[in-house]
């Protein structure tokens, strides 16, 4: 019975945390440009992987497959800095603006025009293809190649 009371108290503290979290509005992030300007040798295309502090197994697989695709299929572009891979934790306050900038709804791979960050594509199908590595990597490669360079 004591154990029941303990579990009930824990559940109650959870409910209190929910109520508390709902009562305090999170600070709105400052409007900031999606991509910091780097004057010299800026890449043409940025491949972002947006994640949170808590990393699920499937999320790690998506990151690994996407990174591997970029590293293996676009090695010369990476070396020449025409393309860049960035993994970003959106739980960090400085990075929260990416959620709004790219209309993110979960952990995502996004192809972005570095010169005009309003031109971007969220690779929605990674979640459907993550169980088939070849299809996943083919999709990511195709989307990066098809992304129009400005």
């Amino acid at each position, binding site marked *: *019975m004591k154990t*029941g009371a303990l*579990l*009930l108290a*824990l*559940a*109650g*503290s*959870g*409910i209190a*945390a*929910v109520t508390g*979290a*709902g009562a305090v509005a999170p600070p709105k992030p400052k409007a900031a440009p999606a991509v910091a300007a780097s004057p010299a040798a800026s890449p043409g295309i940025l491949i972002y992987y*947006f*994640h*949170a*502090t*808590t990393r*699920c*197994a*499937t*999320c790690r697989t998506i990151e690994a497959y996407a990174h591997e695709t970029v590293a293996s299929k676009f090695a010369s572009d990476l070396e020449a800095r025409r393309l860049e891979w960035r993994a970003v934790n*959106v*739980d960090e306050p400085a990075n*929260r603006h990416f*959620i*709004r900038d790219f*209309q*993110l*709804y*979960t*952990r*995502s791979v996004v192809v972005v025009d570095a010169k005009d960050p309003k031109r971007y594509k*969220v690779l*929605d*199908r*990674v*979640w*459907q293809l993550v*169980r088939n590595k070849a299809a996943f990597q083919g999709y990511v490669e195709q989307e990066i190649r098809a992304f129009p360079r400005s």
Partner: protein
Amino acid sequence: MDATLAVSATALWMGLLTSVSPCPLAANIAAMSYLGREVGSRRRTLVGGLLYTLGRALAYAALAAILVGGLLSVPEVALFLQAHMNRVLGPLLVVVGLVLLEWIRLPGFGSRIYDRTGDRLVKAGLVGALPLGAVLALAFCPVSAGLFFGGLIPLALEHRSSLWLPALYGLGTGLPVVVFAVLVSAGLAWAGSAFHRLQAVERWARRVTAVVVIAVGLYYTWSFTIRGGSSL
């Protein structure tokens, strides 16, 4: 016709992918235990399972109707549900587990009026299956959010289907749970009759169910309610 079939099959397939993804698996295990605890009554388990699946289908259809109708944006809804539903789910599952253990009695349980009407707990179990399905459907994790908001919703928008495709998706997410629940129920019934201890098996099935539901609830409470989850 072929195109319609292909799109319908895709929606169903995405639902199946969602149900067996590692992230929603914890919630599904709780649901399987909840539905499969009715030892010796496969029909009741099946009805409960179908109600559970209907609850999921209705929740996804309602959500899709809001999104396809353009009433709210996808990121708005996705982030709200991921931020809040999982936080509520943990404590809720702990309370459900304690009710199953009969350490908490819901108001009215054990009353004379009820006792006259018959098997109240069983009825409550069947009635509870539909909202359980709806609540678990709306508790999005990264994988289910990716498949629903990134896979199903674009498909529903393209084909202007706010009911049929989301309902098929819901069916896909619920079917494996129903099949496993019926198998668990049948297995327990077999064990009960083989050892001539049906009542004892039933009692233990209920306790194990409660422990599983509480364990899943504590996992959700720790991960999402206490640690606070994350922005995505």
